[in-house]
């Protein structure tokens, strides 16, 4: 058992951090949230990703023929960790692209598809979105009703997706569609790679409770997608979607620990600089216990992530126990951000833009945004179902079982 990275890996971390510091755009403040409008944000992401690619730091662990660097997963982990803790916002529009679309394409696509898509992802040309959820297919992803009918060399798509993050910026979409309504619901699905510029696609931004519009409704009306854009066989969509979702749940393994460590430092700064009855709140024994718990949960996240990563390094694709990691970042984030507001007393209501705002309204935003954490990427209830049924092999609920038959 060894938690240390090797001397060479640490040297690489330093080399990359030094290089990264020079890429950060003017005016970008790594100590707080940076606000961009959508066009600026996409452009900043593309520029950043392009510089990573040109600098030789994109997909360290992928083969050279796809634009990767031919190194190991450890170098990739180091790159991800360093970005997450210095300029995470710059890479955020590419979160789904890098965390879900890319590994799915890399592990499930044909040689031709890989050569077409992977380099354009790595050099920042294209952003991808994930079209799984629909009005009647949320937790029950397999209830997907968006239809794809085969006509000559194309699929004709009609239907609607919802909660599609970054669709308004996206160039491509990983889309789950129903190709055969006559068979059991998990069996009639297919998985397509869809160019978002195709005629018939309409994206309508939806405002979230944070007052921003990060996700969208996406409508498909007679949209033509070439059959070559299918991933795997017709009818295999569910298996491939599960692969994507497993990658989604384990996105956090490498980066969430270091990110929460950085957040803990911010929380401590807040506790030291915020007054209650004229004294820094860090002197309050209740707040101290809460801070300690935040640190403990941060450590759990970090070391559980590393342990998972260590297993993945040996064994390949993550399994259902990845659901633990999803719970370990989403649920504590709600407690930690709530504690941050508690420290601020009445001022905790003040959003960005007032002299009475504390730390530029970062915690107000984070508190609200964290409410989505236990819903997105599979709700906490769904994660516990997965753990109960796939890891612990507890019996399925009888009504659900009956409906399946």
């Amino acid at each position, binding site marked *: 058992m060894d*938690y240390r990275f090797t001397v060479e890996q640490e040297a690489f971390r330093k080399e990359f951090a030094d290089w990264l510091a020079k890429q950060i755009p003017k005016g970008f403040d790594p100590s707080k949230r940076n606000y961009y409008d959508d066009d600026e944000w996409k452009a900043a992401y593309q520029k950043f990703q392009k510089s990573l690619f040109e600098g030789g730091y994109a997909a360290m662990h992928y083969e050279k023929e796809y634009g990767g660097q031919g190194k190991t997963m450890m170098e990739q982990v180091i790159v991800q960790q360093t970005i997450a803790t210095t300029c995470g916002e710059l890479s955020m529009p590419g979160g789904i692209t890098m965390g879900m679309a890319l590994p799915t394409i890399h592990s499930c696509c044909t040689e031709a598809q890989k050569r077409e898509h992977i380099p354009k992802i790595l050099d920042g040309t294209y952003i991808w979105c994930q079209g799984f959820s629909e009005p009647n297919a949320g937790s029950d992803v397999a209830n997907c009703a968006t239809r794809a009918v085969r006509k000559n060399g194309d699929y004709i798509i009609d239907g609607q997706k919802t909660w599609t993050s970054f669709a308004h910026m996206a160039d491509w979409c990983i889309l789950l569609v129903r190709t055969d309504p006559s068979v059991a619901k998990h069996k009639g699905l297919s998985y397509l790679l869809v160019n978002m510029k195709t005629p018939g696609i309409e994206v309508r931004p939806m405002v979230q409770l944070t007052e921003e519009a990060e996700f969208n409704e996406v409508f498909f009306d007679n949209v033509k997608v070439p059959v070559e854009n299918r991933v795997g066989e017709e009818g295999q969509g569910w298996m491939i979607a599960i692969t994507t979702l497993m990658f989604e749940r384990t996105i956090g393994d490498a980066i969430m620990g270091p990110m929460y460590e950085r957040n803990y430092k911010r929380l401590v700064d807040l506790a030291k600089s915020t007054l209650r009855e004229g004294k820094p709140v860090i002197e309050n024994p209740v707040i101290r216990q809460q*801070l*300690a718990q935040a640190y*403990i949960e941060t450590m759990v996240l970090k070391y559980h992530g590393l342990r998972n990563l*260590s297993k993945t390094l040996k064994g390949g694709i993550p399994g259902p126990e990845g659901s*633990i990691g999803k719970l370990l970042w989403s649920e504590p984030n709600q407690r930690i951000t709530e504690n941050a507001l508690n420290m601020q007393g009445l001022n905790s209501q003040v959003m960005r833009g007032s002299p009475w705002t504390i730390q530029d309204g970062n915690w107000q935003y984070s508190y609200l945004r964290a409410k989505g954490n236990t819903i997105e990427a599979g709700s906490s209830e769904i994660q516990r179902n997965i753990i109960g049924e796939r890891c612990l092999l507890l019996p*399925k609920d009888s009504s659900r079982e009956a409906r399946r038959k």
Partner: protein
Amino acid sequence: MDINLNEDQVEMMRQARRFCENETPMTFVREMFEDERGFTDDLWNKMVEMGWTAMLIPEQYGGLGMQMTDLMLVLMEHGRAVVPSPLFSTVLLGAEAIIAAGSDAQKEKYLTAIAEGSMRGTLALHEPGSGANPGYIQMEARKDGDGFILSGTKLFVTDAHAADFIVCPARTKAGIDPADGITLFIVDAKAPGVAISQLPVIDRTRKLCAIEFKNVKVGKDGILGEANKGWSPLCKVIRKACVGLAAECIGAAEKAMEIAIEYAKVRVQFDQPIGSFQAIKHRCAQMYVEVESGRSLLYYAAWAQDNTDEQEAAIAASAAKVLCTETGKNVAGSAIQVLGGIGFSWEHEIHFYLKRTKASELAFGDTLYHREQVVSLTT
């Protein structure tokens, strides 16, 4: 970075599990719960044969020179079986105090004997009025020629009734700062003036004692480490003890979870196995989340004891103590709920898991204390 167990470690765990299945089945645990002494010579000798008393002792004193991660694996198995024995107190309290502060002569005398199984020791830390703060040490040691005279009361001393020697921190200088004025002493358990009595505690698979010291003379050779500077080595001992308890709690939680899951698959109500009800399924899933994430922190904390600086080792030990003992207690409690009426019965073994983990939560600093440690070391 590689956090997988190696083959030797996996084998060591397998052997420990087999040992516990054969030597300490629940019938034995029940007997020992009621028994005054709480273990047998036969069990002790077999543990010694397994090499468990020698694991952390340096090779030059007849030990195996292994790391905390190795002992952790054995203790997880002991937690699974709620093993009753003075192994924890001897290797993590008595021996570690000598390792942390002893002179060569003291190490030669005590460690060699512990490694070969001919001596047992413990640590008399807590005092009346300390709550659960191990730094609150007020018992006085008066200078007496070359040596000292100890008078006062120590409470919750693990396995003192079975110990040959007791490491006892006491004040050699008045004050409240533990870092200044505490000296460690080695006291012979049979010395005149030492009166040991067992406390009727909730968890009697691990005996806790009160010790009255009445004018107990300790010679020069009984002074352990530097005078007035006993707190720093003591902290080292407490740290490893905390990791040891955390390991036991993860083992206990894992077993309690398995008991609950197994039952949830076979117990039928309303024509279905109760494990198909989401209220039960999610409870079990939560147990798994806590056990596995607790294990992740535990592994790191054990590793940190031998491979990082003091501050990081202290943070990790306190964090693991808080998290893993709470996990143990929560999972055992939750398992009782899954079991229903049978879980509340004396006849079912689950209550031993609750009792042991709840006791571990309190020992060597409770969660209030260790959270305060974490925050003061990270801000």
